[in-house]
């Protein structure tokens, strides 16, 4: 499977990546949803961030989670990853506790969290995605990696069209190239689920198009959940959308219902197909006008 052709500086001069055949891990999922949140609430000290959240993500979904800053998007991702424990409610990922299925979940955190200047090669960044054992002393083989692990890193880099730059220092790459490497780092453990937290921050417009082409290709074989402000770039790729602003409303299709829009902006009378929403947002960005007409 190949992403569609386009002009992208980070892909220029290269063939498009070959994405592996679907690996939804049906045996692991056993017909259950990939993600199942039921009545989940979470608070930082006394500030409630998520309240009675229900979310179901099926195998093959490409779900975009949108919402205002401070609405609980990143907290939601961390709960799905098992990095935060909910105050109440249940979380099942691939039919199990999130911590039990860590190796099957790939995570691409916000770009801004990465140390900007760090002596590490592209290949070594990808190798960091290999899972370690659970115990404090389960560090694996020191100090380096086996030949098979190194080859797997190169193969994974090839999937995101970055194998040529495997020996380059990570901080010498462009924003778009860095993000592709971070995607490869998440892919090296053969995940059944990929979680993205603001994947397009610090990437130029062409780099965004290139990245979403890659995600679009990946979504044919891996379930993807993406938290993002950037619906404009993602709009043509996602299969369902959810809105979170302390509460969460999910739509199985690509339509933003009045209740979803109300959760973000206040009262709305009519539903809004996602494409129309994007169109409206684009026109606002172009004209610099108010957003209340959506």
């Amino acid at each position, binding site marked *: 499977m190949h992403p569609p052709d386009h002009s992208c500086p980070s892909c220029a001069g290269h063939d498009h990546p070959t994405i592996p055949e679907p690996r939804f891990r049906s045996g692991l999922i056993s017909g259950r949803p990939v993600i199942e949140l039921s009545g989940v609430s979470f608070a930082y000290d006394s500030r409630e961030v998520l309240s009675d959240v229900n979310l179901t993500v099926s195998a093959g979904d490409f779900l975009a989670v949108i919402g205002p800053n401070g609405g609980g998007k990143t907290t939601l991702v961390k709960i799905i990853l098992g990095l935060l424990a909910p105050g109440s409610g249940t979380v099942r990922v691939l039919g199990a506790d999130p911590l039990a299925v860590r190796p099957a979940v790939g995570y691409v955190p916000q770009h801004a969290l990465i140390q900007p200047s760090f*002596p590490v090669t592209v290949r070594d960044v990808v190798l*960091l995605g290999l899972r*370690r054992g659970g115990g404090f002393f389960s560090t694996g083989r020191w100090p380096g990696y086996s030949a098979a692990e190194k080859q797997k890193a190169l193969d994974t880099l090839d999937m995101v069209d970055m194998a040529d730059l495997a020996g380059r220092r990570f901080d010498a790459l462009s924003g778009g190239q860095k993000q592709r490497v971070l995607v490869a780092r998440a892919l090296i453990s053969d995940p059944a689920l990929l979680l993205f937290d603001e994947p397009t921050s610090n990437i130029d417009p062409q780099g965004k198009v290139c990245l979403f082409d890659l995600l679009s290709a990946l979504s044919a074989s891996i379930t993807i959940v993406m938290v993002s402000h950037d619906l404009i770039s993602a709009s043509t790729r996602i299969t369902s959308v959810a809105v979170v602003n302390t509460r969460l409303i999910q739509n199985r299709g690509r339509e933003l219902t009045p209740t979803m829009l109300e959760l973000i902006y206040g009262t709305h009378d009519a539903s809004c197909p996602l494409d129309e929403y994007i169109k409206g947002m684009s026109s606002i960005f172009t004209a610099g006008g108010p957003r209340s007409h959506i």
Partner: protein
Amino acid sequence: MMDVLGMEFMRNALLAGLLASLACGVIGSLVVVNRQVFMAGGVAHTAYGGVGLAFYLGLPVLPCAVGFTVVAALIMAMASFGRAERSDSVVGILWAAGMAMGIILMDLTPGYNVDLMSYLFGSILAVPKSDILFMLVLDAFILSVVLFWYKDFLSLSFDMEFARSTGVPVRLLYALMQVLTAVTVIMVIQVAGLILVIALLTIPPMLAELFTKSLLKMMALATLASLVFCLAGLALSYHFDITSGASIIAMATAGYVVAWGLRRLWRRA
């Protein structure tokens, strides 16, 4: 040269420089890539409380200072983990409190006549053989720990959030990193003094970072650079009869400026 090596205090100074360089190269690299230079400075100054405590209680300085500083470093680690916006305040408090405690305990020590300057600015030429052995043990401990958890230290230093998602015990390793920093600081106080220790923890790794593509190579090059600076500083100190700790730092600073300039020229070429 043979005359110099014939003197026991000079042989001890060279050994102390070598052992301190190893610790500085390895732990300094972790300090630099994790942007914890200020915290390392806090640990160094808090160590003075341990020195004061050792004199007040009549205990061996090095082990007592190690114990005291490790506890202070763990408090800093607990107070700062996941709360970067408040870590500088906590470090600032412990920094000043440790120094104050050290000064007060020195004042209260009966018959106190210790040369305060030797702890503030180092006395590499006065390191006894017993301290060399203790430094050797500390180096072995530092090296073993860092090599065993190298991949985990690399992962948490590069991207702590992702490291947590892959099962790296980041909180424990973060605390361990502060403990190792404390141990290193105590070692280097012998060489450069607690005021100048930050330079030796920072300059060689920063220089190494300019020329390396991996944390392990950065640690190796920083160790080598640190050793060169120690030797050059000692030579400078010997020839001009000036303070050895300050001479070492002066050589390190000059070395970094030259390396940085060469790097810039090389990139332009």
